[in-house]
């Protein structure tokens, strides 16, 4: 049986990789995908805890995370499409009109 810590370390690594993606990539679609990666890293933690604590709650939470992630992806992609239509770019650093 693989110990719980292994899963936690693995998901921490994946999570950090996702963070890096969100931080440095200049393509909104990849940023969004990195967010999905982070969500999945957290999901892995939930499932691992669910298994090792013998509680279904972790799996239920993952179920909800998936629902929310689906909604988030739909809205995020719709926003990307409408932004791309207006500005012909996917670079988040060029979308900075919303400031002082």
């Amino acid at each position, binding site marked *: 049986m693989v110990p719980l810590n*292994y899963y936690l370390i693995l998901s921490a690594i994946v999570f950090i990789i996702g963070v890096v993606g969100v*931080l440095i990539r200049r393509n909104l679609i990849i940023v969004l995908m990195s967010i999905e990666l982070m969500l999945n890293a957290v999901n892995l933690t939930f499932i691992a805890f669910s298994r090792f*604590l013998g509680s279904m709650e972790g*799996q239920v939470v993952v179920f909800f995370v998936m629902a929310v992630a689906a909604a988030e992806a739909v809205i995020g992609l719709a926003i990307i499409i409408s932004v791309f239509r207006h500005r012909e770019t996917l670079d988040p650093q060029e979308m900075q009109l919303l400031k002082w």
Partner: protein
Amino acid sequence: MNPSTVIFFVLAVLLVLSSLMVVFVRNVVHAAVALVAALLLIAIFFITLQAPMVGVLQVMVYAGAIMVLFLFVIMFLNPMTPERPRRAWWALGTILALLLGALLLPIVSKGELLADPVAATEFFGSPESLAKSLFTEFVLPFEIASIVLLVAIVGGVVLAKRER
């Protein structure tokens, strides 16, 4: 090292590799395919952790629907202008992420190694057990989730519709 640990490490290495590809590959489609691979690997992890229902749902929802949507949008927009990375920002981001790792890893790796405290039953993780918690204890969040999805559908249509 028993077989399950070996399988774990093989899958873990693959997962980390595909995750790295998602973030560092230039081509958006390659990144998306790498993400699909990562999601499938995570689904396999779910199944090995006695969550087959969630695992299959992961394949259906994430790999089967969300990522197709991503690919669809990528093809729809077909953004071929290459990114112009900024070195300083890359360095900063990497340093911050490494710092996060340095702080996070000690937390998750310490503490006693739990080794299967609960003998997982056949029932655990099955559709019945998931449904039981979903429709009793979590029925309100479940209904709210359905509303969230409805709102997302409407919002997606409104946002992506070309205004006339």
